[in-house]
């Protein structure tokens, strides 16, 4: 190698400056994309921080829907949905299910009547190794349509330090500024905390796409409709749901029908705050049969992240903006609680004794 002509001191300085500039631009771009340099952007971490600010931190537990119980059973498909989706779960036959009933609160020791809503999360484990995970709620519509609006709702509901309760003026102002909440507010007016998990219907809320054998997409929503009926309202006892569930399962399996609703062209798939008209075509895709229950502290559901975007071939997410946000926030919650379970340095120590509240 021939030695190049020497550089002047000024030239050396400028070239070092150029190198430093190139590296700095890359670091800044990395920081911007990773949101460290974009503090105003809504991130999964900020969403989960807000949940923690509202409910407190309960190490090892989910950051929302923290109070719950594991269930197990199976899904018997009748084959009716396979015209619309090639997912193996819809072929005639049986798919094992591990699920979780919960109350949508951040405090795992909150009374069962804290909210008039119950949730049901399910993981269908297909024989081909693919999975279908879904998280459903016992209401037909979600209050808001976007992650940003949900974040603002959480902010409005943050307990006031002086009273320990949300400031009704802030909550009222939020709903006034968000007319898309009307359908939810109308529903919640009549909603009561049910005395049982098994008498509720559970809605997917978000829309999804079924993919048929020709690759055609069909926009759908689904819900689980119980065979058990009853509209009993929960009592004053803090924990009646788990006992009710165990007692009913001791008498026999509990069943729901998976009702799939097919959208008409033009029905919104990106707005979970709006119901589709009630005359839409529905398919009874099969029966969910739950046979056993386990405490969430030791059951298989504890370590499952019921991310509704974990889908088998034949089901895809729609353009609903809540779905990626749910996926990202659930992943953040899952990392935090598994880190606490693992007692990793810097995580909150796991507690086993209930808070007295």
């Amino acid at each position, binding site marked *: 190698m021939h030695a190049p002509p020497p550089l002047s001191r000024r030239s*050396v300085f400028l070239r070092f400056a150029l190198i430093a500039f190139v590296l700095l631009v890359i670091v800044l*771009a990395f920081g911007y994309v990773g949101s460290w340099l974009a503090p105003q952007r809504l991130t*999964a971490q900020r969403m989960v921080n807000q949940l923690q600010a509202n409910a407190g931190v309960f190490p090892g537990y989910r950051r929302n829907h923290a109070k719950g119980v594991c269930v197990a059973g199976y899904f018997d498909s009748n084959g009716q949905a396979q015209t619309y989706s090639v997912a193996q779960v819809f072929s005639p036959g049986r798919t094992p299910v591990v699920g979780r009933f919960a109350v949508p609160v951040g405090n795992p020791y909150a009374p069962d009547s804290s909210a008039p809503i119950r949730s049901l999360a399910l993981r269908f484990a297909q024989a081909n190794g693919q999975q279908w995970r879904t998280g459903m709620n016992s209401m037909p519509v979600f209050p808001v349509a976007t*992650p940003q609006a949900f974040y603002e709702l959480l902010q409005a509901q943050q307990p006031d330090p002086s009273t320990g309760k949300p400031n009704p003026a802030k909550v009222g102002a939020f709903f006034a500024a968000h007319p898309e909440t009307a359908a939810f507010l109308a529903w919640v007016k009549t909603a009561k905390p049910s005395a049982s998990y098994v008498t509720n219907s559970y809605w997917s809320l978000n829309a999804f796409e079924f993919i048929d054998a020709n690759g055609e997409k069909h926009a759908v929503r689904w819900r689980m409709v119980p065979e058990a009926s009853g509209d009993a309202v929960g009592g004053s006892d803090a924990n009646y749901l788990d006992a009710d569930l165990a007692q009913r399962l001791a008498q026999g399996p509990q069943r729901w029908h998976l009702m799939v609703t097919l959208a008409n062209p033009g029905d919104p798939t990106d707005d979970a705050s709006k119901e589709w008209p009630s005359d839409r075509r529905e398919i009874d895709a099969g029966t969910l049969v739950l046979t056993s229950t386990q405490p969430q502290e030791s059951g298989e559901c*504890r370590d499952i992240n019921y991310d509704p975007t974990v889908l088998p071939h034949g089901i895809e997410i729609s353009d609903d903006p809540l779905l990626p946000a749910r*996926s990202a926030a659930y992943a953040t919650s899952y990392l935090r609680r*598994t880190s606490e379970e693992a007692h990793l340095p810097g995580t909150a120590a796991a507690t086993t004794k209930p808070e007295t509240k």
Partner: protein
Amino acid sequence: MTRSPDQFVLAARVLHWLMAIMIVSMLFIGVGMVASVSERHDWLLAIHKPLGIAILVLAVIRLIVRLRNPPPPLPADLPALQKLAAHASHYLLYALMLVMPLVGWAMLSAGGYPVMLSHSLRLPPIFPVNATAFAILRHAHAWLAALLFLTFLAHLGAALYHGLIRRDGVLSSMTGIRHEPE
């Protein structure tokens, strides 16, 4: 085989630049998708997994190419400390190229997730389902990514130092662009 003694072989150069684009993209995709709650989260995640496996496959091929075609020697007058840094950072880059995809794959396996490379293509798990292992592997994936990003910055800074300041042929041994002295 056609090669000049002060250049990397063509296969090594092609692999280097292809993987440079893939790995740097991967780092940005990774930090972007983890933070995002928008639709970017899902499509970045959909790219991240197959791209990671592609990097793993290419890294194995690259290691073989490297072992069969030793790289051109560093300039004889390079200070010993810089030589050490050059060698150490290259071992580190190769290790991270191979380990990062494996940690990601193991992490999803430990978390009980199906490892889906597309809507229908699933890889088998390479680690038993275990929440504690998931948490450790997930943190390791992030810390190793930070280490890879810093190593990439050092590598790029050093390459530019060789190309712009020392002008000792190290950068052109990989770019293939040669300014033959008269």
